[in-house]
C-alpha cells in the first residue's frame, strides 16, 4: 500500500516544508491507515490461528444453550419419573430455587442424597443408570464419580461417539460438573438432548464434585473404570 505522502519528492519537502498542522494531519493519516492494516491482518490471522488450533472454538456452536427444546413434556413427566418415586426427598429452600430454575430449562435436579441413592442403585452396575461428568479432561482425570463417563460439551465431537450409545440405552442419566456456580452440567444435558437423548432421562446433580468430595464419597482417579479409588474414600 502506498503512503499518502508517497508522491512527495525529497526536493519538494526541502523547498517547502509542510506546515506543522499539515504534518500532524499527514502523520495521523498514516497512523490511521496503519491501524486499519494491523486490525484487518490481526483479525484474519487470529481467525486462522483459532481454526488451526486443536483447542480452537467452533464459531457457530452455541456453547451456552438456554433450554431443552419442547421442554414441556419432560417437565410434565417429571413427577412420574423413576427417580421421583425412588428417591423423593424434601428440598431445602435453596434447592427449590435451583430446581425451579432447572425446570424452566426443561431439566430436573437431583440432590446429593438422590445422587448417592442412584450411585448405589444396582441398575448403575448394569449401566441403566449412567453418571456423566461434564468437566474438562484435566478435572476428570484428577477424580470423578466412579464409572462416570466424561462428556465435555465444549469438545462434544470428541465424546459423543462413546457417550451417546450408553445414554440411549440407559434409563436415567445423572449429569454433574464442579458444583457451585458451574453451569456446564446444564449445558451438557441440553447438548445431550439436542443429540437425541430424551429429556425425561436427564437429571442434573447440581452439587457436583465439590459436594461429592466434601461428603467423602468415592472418587475414581484417571480413566473410567481405572479402579484407582483411593482408600481414604469409602
Amino acid at each position: 500500500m502506498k503512503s499518502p505522502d508517497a508522491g512527495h519528492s525529497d526536493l519538494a519537502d526541502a523547498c517547502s516544508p509542510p506546515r506543522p498542522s499539515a504534518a500532524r494531519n499527514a502523520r495521523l493519516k498514516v497512523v490511521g491507515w496503519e491501524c486499519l492494516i494491523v486490525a484487518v491482518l490481526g483479525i484474519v490471522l487470529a481467525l486462522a490461528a483459532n481454526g488451526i488450533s486443536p483447542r480452537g472454538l467452533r464459531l457457530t456452536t452455541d456453547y451456552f444453550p438456554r433450554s431443552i427444546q419442547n421442554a414441556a413434556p419432560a417437565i410434565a413427566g417429571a413427577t412420574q419419573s423413576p427417580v421421583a418415586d425412588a428417591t423423593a426427598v424434601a428440598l431445602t429452600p435453596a434447592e427449590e430455587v435451583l430446581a425451579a430454575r432447572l425446570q424452566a430449562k426443561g431439566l430436573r435436579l437431583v440432590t446429593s442424597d438422590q445422587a448417592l441413592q442412584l450411585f448405589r442403585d444396582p441398575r448403575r452396575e448394569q449401566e441403566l443408570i449412567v453418571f456423566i461428568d461434564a468437566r474438562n479432561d484435566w478435572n476428570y482425570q484428577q477424580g470423578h464419580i466412579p464409572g462416570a463417563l466424561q462428556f465435555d460439551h465444549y469438545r462434544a465431537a470428541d465424546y459423543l461417539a462413546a457417550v451417546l450409545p450408553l445414554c440411549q440405552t440407559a434409563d436415567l442419566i445423572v449429569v454433574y460438573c464442579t458444583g457451585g456456580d458451574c453451569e456446564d452440567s446444564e449445558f451438557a444435558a441440553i447438548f445431550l438432548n439436542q443429540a437425541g437423548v430424551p429429556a425425561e432421562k436427564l437429571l442434573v446433580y447440581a452439587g457436583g464434585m465439590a459436594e461429592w468430595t466434601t461428603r467423602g464419597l468415592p472418587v475414581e482417579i484417571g480413566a473410567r473404570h481405572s479402579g484407582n479409588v483411593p482408600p481414604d474414600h469409602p
Partner: protein
Amino acid sequence: MDFAAVLGRWFLGALFVYMGLSKAMEPVEFLKLVREYQLVQHPLLLNSLAATLPWFEVFCGLLLILGVAVRGSAVMLLLMLIPFTLVVLQRALAMQAELSIPFCAVKFDCGCGAGEVLICRKLVENGALILLSLWLLTGLGRRWSARYSLLQAE
C-alpha cells in the same frame, strides 16, 4: 529516552504475547469469562470475540517486539485496554455492591490471563499499560525496529 521507550515497547509486546497465549491455550475458560461480562449475546459474536481476541493480542505483541507498525499496534492496544478496563471497573463496582465489601477487596478472574486478581491492582496495572501505549504513540522507541511505520520509510 528512546532506549527507555524501546524497553517499554519490548515489555509491552512480551506482556501481550504472554497474556494472549495464556488465554489462547485455554479458549473455553476465556469464553466463559467473556460471557460473564454480557457484552454480546449472540453465540457467533461471543465465540468470535473469545476466539480472536487472544491471538490478536499475540499478534500486536509480536509487532511491538519486532518494531513493526509500532504506532498502529499501540493504538490497537489502547482500543483493547481502555474498553476492557472500563468493563472490568463496571463489573467490580457491581460485585462491590453485591458483596458489600471495600472496593479494593474485590477480587475476581477478569479474563486478563493472570487468574484471580485484586481489582485495585488490576486497574493500576492497566493504567500503566495505557500510559505506556500512549508514550509509544509519541514516536519514541524507533531504535531496533524492523519497520517502525508500515507506510513511511523511516
